[in-house]
C-alpha cells in the first residue's frame, strides 16, 4: 500500500520554539492512521501544515504523488484533503444544514460528476445523525453536536483524506462510540483518515497504524500493539508507570 498523503521532514518554528521537528508521517487510503502525543507536541501544527494554514519552515508535503507544499489551502481542499478543528471552526450563523450545504456546493466548482448538493447534504445529515437539528443555527448547538457538524461539513467535500483533530473532545461516551463506528464505516468506503485523539481506547480501537509525536519529533511508528510496547512512548505519557493499553 502506498501512501496517498505524506509529509517529509516537516519543521515548523515559532520564533525560538521548534513546534515540529523533522516530522515524516504517512496516511494510507482505507485505514485510520493515528497521530498521538501529549499536549503541545505539535499535532495541530502538523495538521495546519498539511492543510496549508501554516507554512512549514522546512520540509515537504505530498498528496497523490504531487508536491503540494506551496499550494493554497483551498487548492488542497479541491484535491481531496478535508479536516476538522480542535477548537471549533463552525459557521456559527448558518444552520447545521447550511454548514454542510456550503461545502457540498463548493464541491461543485471542481467535481463535475453532476451530483445534487441538496441530496448530498441530506445523505450526510442522515449518515452523521444530524437530521433532527439540521435547521438550528450551529452557534447555538452544544459543542458535541457542533463537532459532528464539522465532521459532516468535511465529508461533504467528498475528500480522499480526512484529518480529524480530537473529534471526541466534548462528546460523551455514547457519542464517542458512534463516532468510532462512523469512522470505521467511512474507512471501509475507502477514505483515508488521520486521527489526532487523546482518548486512548478510541485510538487503539480504531487505528490500524499510529505515529507518536513528542516535542515535535516522531518518536514511534507502528501498529497499536507495537506503539504500546514502546518504552519511549510510555515515557512520554506522564512518567512510565501508567501503561497505555487498549480496553
Amino acid at each position: 500500500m502506498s501512501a496517498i498523503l505524506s509529509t517529509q521532514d516537516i519543521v515548523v518554528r515559532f520564533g525560538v520554539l521548534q513546534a515540529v521537528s523533522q516530522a515524516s508521517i504517512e496516511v494510507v487510503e482505507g485505514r485510520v492512521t493515528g497521530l498521538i502525543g501529549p499536549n503541545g507536541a505539535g499535532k495541530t501544527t502538523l495538521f495546519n501544515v498539511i492543510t496549508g494554514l501554516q507554512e512549514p519552515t522546512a520540509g515537504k508535503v505530498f498528496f497523490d504523488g504531487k508536491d503540494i507544499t506551496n499550494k493554497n489551502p483551498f487548492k488542497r481542499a479541491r484535491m481531496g484533503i478535508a479536516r476538522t478543528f480542535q477548537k471549533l471552526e463552525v459557521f456559527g450563523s448558518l444552520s447545521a444544514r447550511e454548514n454542510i450545504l456550503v461545502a457540498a456546493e463548493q464541491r461543485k466548482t471542481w467535481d463535475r460528476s453532476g451530483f445534487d448538493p441538496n441530496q448530498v447534504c441530506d445523505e450526510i445529515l442522515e449518515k452523521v445523525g444530524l437530521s433532527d437539528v439540521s435547521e438550528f443555527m450551529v452557534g447555538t448547538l452544544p459543542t458535541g453536536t457542533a463537532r459532528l457538524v464539522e465532521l459532516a461539513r468535511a465529508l461533504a467535500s467528498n475528500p480522499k483524506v480526512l484529518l480529524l483533530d480530537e473529534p471526541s473532545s466534548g462528546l460523551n461516551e455514547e457519542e464517542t462510540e458512534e463516532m468510532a463506528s462512523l469512522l470505521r464505516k467511512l474507512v471501509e468506503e475507502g477514505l483515508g483518515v488521520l486521527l489526532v485523539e487523546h482518548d486512548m481506547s478510541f485510538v487503539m480501537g480504531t487505528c490500524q497504524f499510529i505515529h507518536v509525536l513528542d516535542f515535535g519529533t516522531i518518536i514511534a511508528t507502528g501498529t497499536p500493539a507495537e506503539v504500546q510496547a514502546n518504552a519511549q512512548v510510555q515515557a512520554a505519557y506522564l512518567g512510565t508507570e501508567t501503561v497505555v493499553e487498549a480496553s
Partner: protein
Amino acid sequence: MRLKVSPRLISAIVVGLVVLFFVTQNWGGASVNAKTISSFLVVGIALGGIYAITAGGLVVTYATTGIFNFSHAAIGCFLAFCYWQLTVKQGLPTLVALVITLLVIAPAIGFLLDKVIMRRLRDAALVVQLMVTVGLMLTFMGITLTIWSPKTGRTLPQFFQDTKGVQLGDVTATWHRIITVVIALLVALGLRFLLYRTRLGISMRAVVDSRSLAGLTGAKPSIISGASWALGCMTAGLAGILIAPETGLVVENLTLIIVVASAAAAIAQLKSIPMAFIGGLIIGLSKSFSAVYLEWGTDWTYADEAIPAAILFIALLFLPMARLETGKIRITKRTERLTRPWEAALGAGVMIALVGAWANGWIPWISGTTFGERSTVWLGRGAGFMVIGLIMISLIPLIGWAGQVSFANFAIAGIGAVLFSHFGGQNGDALGIVYVMLVCAPLGLAIALPALRLKGLYLALATMAFAEIADKVIIRHPNMLDPSATGVLFKPVDIFGITISSDPSDRKAFLMFLVVTFSLLFFMLEMLRRSRWARRWIAMSDSPAASATIGVNLTTTKMMVFMLSGAMAGFAGCMFGLQRGALSVDSFPLFAGLPLVLLLAVQGVRYPVAAFMGVIGLASFPALYEVLGKPSWLTAIELIGPGIAAIAMAYRPEGAVFYSGRDLAGLLPWRKDARLEKELMVAKEREQNIGKDEINDMGLTRPFTQDKVAQLDRVLDITDLVDETKMVPTGGAS
C-alpha cells in the same frame, strides 16, 4: 534559471514612480538649498512628532485591548477645546490647565469608556467594535461643536508664544516646535518603558495574547484595560493640544487626524510603538515636503490633505499577508431562520404601502403639519432619505454577510453621482445608470484590493482612506466635478414611463419610484440570502480558515461581494444626483458617510430590513422637529444619538431589528419556534455571563494557586489544558 520578482519590489517601484510623477508634475519651483531643507525638516519633524504621539497612543490602546479606536482623534479634539476653555477662557496658568486636562479629564474619559463600553466589546464582532468607536467619534464631535459653537473663531496659543525661538541655520525653530519634538521623544521613551519595564505594562501586553496569562502577572484585568484607555486618551489630548495652534482649533481638522494616526498605525502593523513613531515622522515630513516644495495646481487643490490617506494606502501594499488564524471564532449568541419568499414579498409590499400612504396623504394623524401635508419640500426630503436607504442597503451583503467592514460606499455613491452627470445624466439618458454601475463595481473592488490579503481591520482603514481621497482629490478634480459650473447637472430621466427628477412636480413620482426600487432590492437581497452566494459569504465571515479548507477561494469570493456592493452604491449615487439636481464639491465628506454605516449597524447590519428602519430613523428627527417645534431636549438627544447608538451596540450587538424582530415574532401565535429560540438564547447568554462574573470575582490576584488556574481554565473553556490523565484509558490505573 529562476527569475522571481517579488510583488513587494514591483509595488515599491510602482509606488516610487507614481510619487515621482506627482512630485515632478507639481514641483513648486522652490530651490533646494540649506534654507528650504532646514525649514522642511524643522516643520516636518515637529509635525511628525505630534503625529507620532497620537499614533503611539492609538497603537498602545489597540495592542492592549484589541479595539481600534476611531474616536481617538475626536477625543483629542475635545480635550484640546477643554484646554482652550481652561487657559484662554478661564485664564488658568498653562501648567494647571495641562494637568487638569491631561491628568484628570483625559484619564477619566478613558476609564469611563472602558467601564461602560469597551470592556464589553472584547469578544464582539469587528463590525460592532468599529461601529461603537465610530459612534463615539461622532458623539465627541457633536459635543464639542455644541459646547464650543464653530461660529466663533478660537485660537490656541503656542507654548512660549512670545519668545523668539532658536536660530537653526537660516530658519528659526519656535520653542513650541522644539518642545513638541522633546515631548514626542519623551512619550516614545515613556511608552516603551511602561510597556516593557513596568508590571502594569507587561500585564497590558500579556492581555492581548491571553487573558489567563495576564492574570498570572497579578494585575486585575479591569485595571489593565482601564489604564490602556486612559493612556490612549492622554496621548490623544496631548497631540490635540500641540497641534491645535498649527491647524487651528477646528473640530473637523482635529478629528481628521485619525486618518494620520491610522496610517502611522498601519505602518506599525498595529503593534510596534517605535514603528508608529517612525510612521508619524514619515507623514509629518511628507506633509512638510509638500508644503515647502510642491505647488498643487488648481486640479489638485486639496491633494495636500489627502497625503496621510495615500500613505495609509501605500503602507497596506507592503504589509505581510495575514495568516488564516484558527481558534479565534466567536460564538454567535443568536438564532435566526431564513426569511421565506412570501415573507420577503410581504415585507417589500408593506414598505411600498407605508411610504405610498404617506406620500398620498392617507395617514391622517399627522396632517396639519407641513410634514403631514407633504409639502414638496417634504416629498423631496423623503426622496433624499430613500436615497440614503439605497446606500445603506448596499452595505448589507458586504458588511452584514461577508463581514467586510467598509466605510467607502458613500464615497462610491458620490463618485457614481458625479460620473452619472457625465454618462448621460445631463441628457436624461437612463442607460447612463447602467454605465455608472459598471464602473462602480470594479471601483468597489479596487478599493478593497490592497486589503484583501490582510485582516479585516485593515480593510476598514483602507476604505476610510479611500473615502478621504475620494472627497479631497477625486470628486474635487475639475474634470470630475467642475466647481465653476452652475445649474442643474441632471436632466429628468424617464424610466418605465416614470419621470424622475428633482423638479418639485415630479417628486411624488420619484419618491414612489425610489421606494419600489428599494423594495425590489430588499426582496432580491432576501432571496440572495437563501442562495449559495450569501451562504458562502457568511461562511467566509464566520471562519475564513474553515472556508478555505472546504475549497473556498477567499480572494475571489471577497471580490464578488465588493463588486456587488459597489454596483449597488453606484446606482444609489445616480439616484442621489437625480434627487439633488446639482452637486457641490463638498457633498461627500468622510464624516457624512460614517453615520450611515453606524445607523445601519445599530439597526442590524445582517438584515436587509434594517436599511428601511435606518431610513425611518433618518426621517424621524426632522419629522419630530416639524411636529413638535424645535424643543431643546430633542436637539440634545439628536446630538448624543450616536453615543447612545454606540452604547446600545455594545450591549445589543446584533442590532435593533434582530431583537425586536425576535420579540415580535414571539407574539405571533404560530411562531412557537421564535419563543423557544429566545428562551434558549437567554439561557445561553446567562451561562456566559456567569463565567465572566466568576472571573471578576476571582480577581486574578496573586498568589496564583493551582486551584485558581484550574478554575480560570474551566471558566475560559481552555480545552488545550485538559489534564493529561485523560491519556490513560478509562478504567485504567491512576
